[in-house]
């Protein structure tokens, strides 16, 4: 059978008519199959789908109407014609009632037959098209429904708040985050919601809804939803267009910006501290220079010299502070170039001690350095580790008493290389101890007023120790002394070493 040709079944017990019709239709380009009785007609008509069937009304075994019914039951789109020599109004009605496309009175002319068939096939084509559209439409509806649930799931699962309001000010879509961020409770879909929104946001929404023209932009507002900076949100309202280009409503996206706000606050606090610390020496030097340059002050040369020297001291400390700040910034941005190698902590501390000999003698300090290991080794950057211990040694000397002691004890346990720096200095009060690692914090009392420093040393130390995954402990008693314990991890170092070796083996 040619698949491209339209197929027609002829069921007729009259051989001449059967073959004549077949010839005629084949000439017209149809693929024609014939059956000489009802039984054969049903068998053929229900085994393959024919485009059309011409069925004789009166056959010895079965009625043509029955044959037609069976075929249509199986293939509803097969166009069936009833051919009858007894054409009457009643047969016509009966045939069409059971599903015939039309009836053809016998005898029929070729033109008559072809016209009927072409009409019938046209009808079939329309039916098939309709069926296809219907199927497509059903599929699309399913897809839309699926899409909608999927969209809802997505919207509900995002951490930003989403709230869609129609042009009447009613909530049409929202997710749990939106309710949480805007402190909305018991909201129903299609409920008027504008007056429940925070005032600033409500105003923003009204700008869109009350505008006579379509505003093609988004508006953003920051809202403090809870006191004490506990919840800050940023709401962005955007217009949603209707198909005709007018405003259908607005979509509001609400972001939690609490953490950002906190960082912003810390940053401005830090900037404010830095500015103050930098400005203090500038103010002092400025004052001295103004005094010296002011002829009306009549400063003696000695006084002028004194002020110049004091200015230099202040500028020195200013320079130190700026350098420390640059170091902190480098550490924060992780732009410091590290050269990690095995360091002997004992050697490092002895070297540092040499640098402080003069100060140690001046205070007549009793220095004692002990180590449980002959070579206490740690993998780190020489500059950083030296800086770390220099800070503690320098503090242990600066804040010590005349004839005091400074004891350094290095011990290694399973996890850490522990270096203890114990001084017999002025010590700290508990409150002072808590602030020790804050930037610019310096203990201020009658003992410390002549001790200089940037207030950044320990905050740098803390950053160095943190960067090696170490930790630090402080014990202090006011008037008696302070003990710092620096824990540098050895296990981590060993692990790293193993990894390197393993990698090397694998690559070989």
């Amino acid at each position, binding site marked *: 059978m040619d698949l491209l040709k339209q197929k027609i079944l002829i069921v007729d017990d009259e051989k001449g008519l059967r073959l004549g019709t077949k010839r005629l239709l084949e000439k017209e380009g149809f693929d024609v199959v014939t059956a000489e009785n009802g039984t054969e007609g049903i068998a053929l008509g229900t085994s393959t789908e024919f485009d059309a069937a011409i069925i004789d009304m009166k056959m010895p075994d079965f009625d043509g109407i029955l044959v037609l019914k069976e075929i249509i039951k199986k293939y509803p789109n097969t166009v069936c014609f009833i051919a009858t020599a007894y054409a009457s109004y009643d047969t016509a009605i009966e045939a069409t009632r059971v599903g015939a496309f039309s009836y053809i009175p016998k005898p029929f002319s070729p033109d008559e037959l072809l016209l009927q068939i072409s009409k019938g096939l046209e009808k079939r084509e329309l039916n098939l098209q309709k069926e296809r559209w219907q199927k497509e439409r059903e599929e699309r509806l399913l897809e839309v429904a699926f899409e909608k649930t999927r969209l809802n799931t997505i919207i509900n699962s995002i951490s930003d708040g989403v709230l869609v309001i129609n042009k009447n000010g009613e909530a049409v879509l929202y997710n749990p985050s939106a309710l949480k961020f805007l402190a909305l409770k018991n909201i129903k879909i299609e409920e008027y919601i504008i007056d429940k929104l925070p005032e600033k946001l409500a105003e923003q929404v009204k700008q869109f809804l009350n505008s006579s023209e379509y505003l093609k932009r988004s508006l953003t507002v920051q809202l403090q939803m809870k006191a004490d900076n506990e919840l800050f949100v940023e709401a962005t309202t955007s217009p949603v267009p209707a198909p005709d280009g007018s405003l259908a409503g607005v979509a509001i996206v609400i972001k939690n910006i609490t953490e950002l706000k906190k960082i912003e606050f810390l940053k401005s606090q830090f900037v404010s501290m830095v500015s103050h610390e930098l*400005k203090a020496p500038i103010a002092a030097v400025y*004052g001295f220079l103004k005094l010296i340059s002011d002829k009306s002050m*009549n400063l003696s040369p000695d006084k002028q010299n004194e002020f110049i020297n*004091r200015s230099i001291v202040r500028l020195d400390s200013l320079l130190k502070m700026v350098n420390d700040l640059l170091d902190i910034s480098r550490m924060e941005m992780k732009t410091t170039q590290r050269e990690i190698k095995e360091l002997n902590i004992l050697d490092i501390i002895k070297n540092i001690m040499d640098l402080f000999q003069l100060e140690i003698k001046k205070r007549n300090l009793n220095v004692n350095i002990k180590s449980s290991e002959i070579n206490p080794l740690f993998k780190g950057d020489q500059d950083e580790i030296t800086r770390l211990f220099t800070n503690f040694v320098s503090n242990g000397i600066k804040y010590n008493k005349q004839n005091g002691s400074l004891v350094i004890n290095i011990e290694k346990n399973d996890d850490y290389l522990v270096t203890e720096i114990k001084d017999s200095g002025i010590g700290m009060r508990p409150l002072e101890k808590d602030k020790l690692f804050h930037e610019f914090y310096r203990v*201020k009392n009658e003992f410390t007023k002549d001790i200089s420093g940037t207030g950044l040393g320990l905050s740098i130390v803390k950053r160095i120790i943190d960067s090696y995954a170490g930790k630090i402990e402080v014990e202090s008693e006011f008037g008696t002394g302070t003990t710092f314990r620096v824990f540098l991890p050895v296990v981590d170092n060993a692990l790293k070493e193993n990894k390197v070796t393993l990698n090397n083996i694998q690559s070989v």
Partner: protein
Amino acid sequence: MAKIAIIDDDPDILDASSLVLTSKGHEVITANNPDDGYKIVVDNSPDLIILDVMMNEPDDGFFLAQKFRKNNITTPIIMYTSISKTIGMDYGVNEMVPVDEYVEKPISPAQLIQKVEKLLHKHIER
């Protein structure tokens, strides 16, 4: 000439300010922390107080000023500040902070003298 108390924890500022004011014939007393500052004011009853806002803590100066006013010390106060207004810490003369004048560091001798004379003059008029 007047008696002026300067309370500031920066010894350089204390010395420079003292020198400027003594050169104009004023008598100057100084303290470098809030406690001593309170004491010298009570003991010497100066005509004017110059007070640094930030000593041990960022608002030591404010608290000391409030303490003066609470204890009926109405001596005019010039507050030294070194924190720029541009970074959000905006100080102004108001009820909360009972001072008469703000001066942002650094200050030149001429400015200091001018502010001091203005406030002393105003005080005498009152």
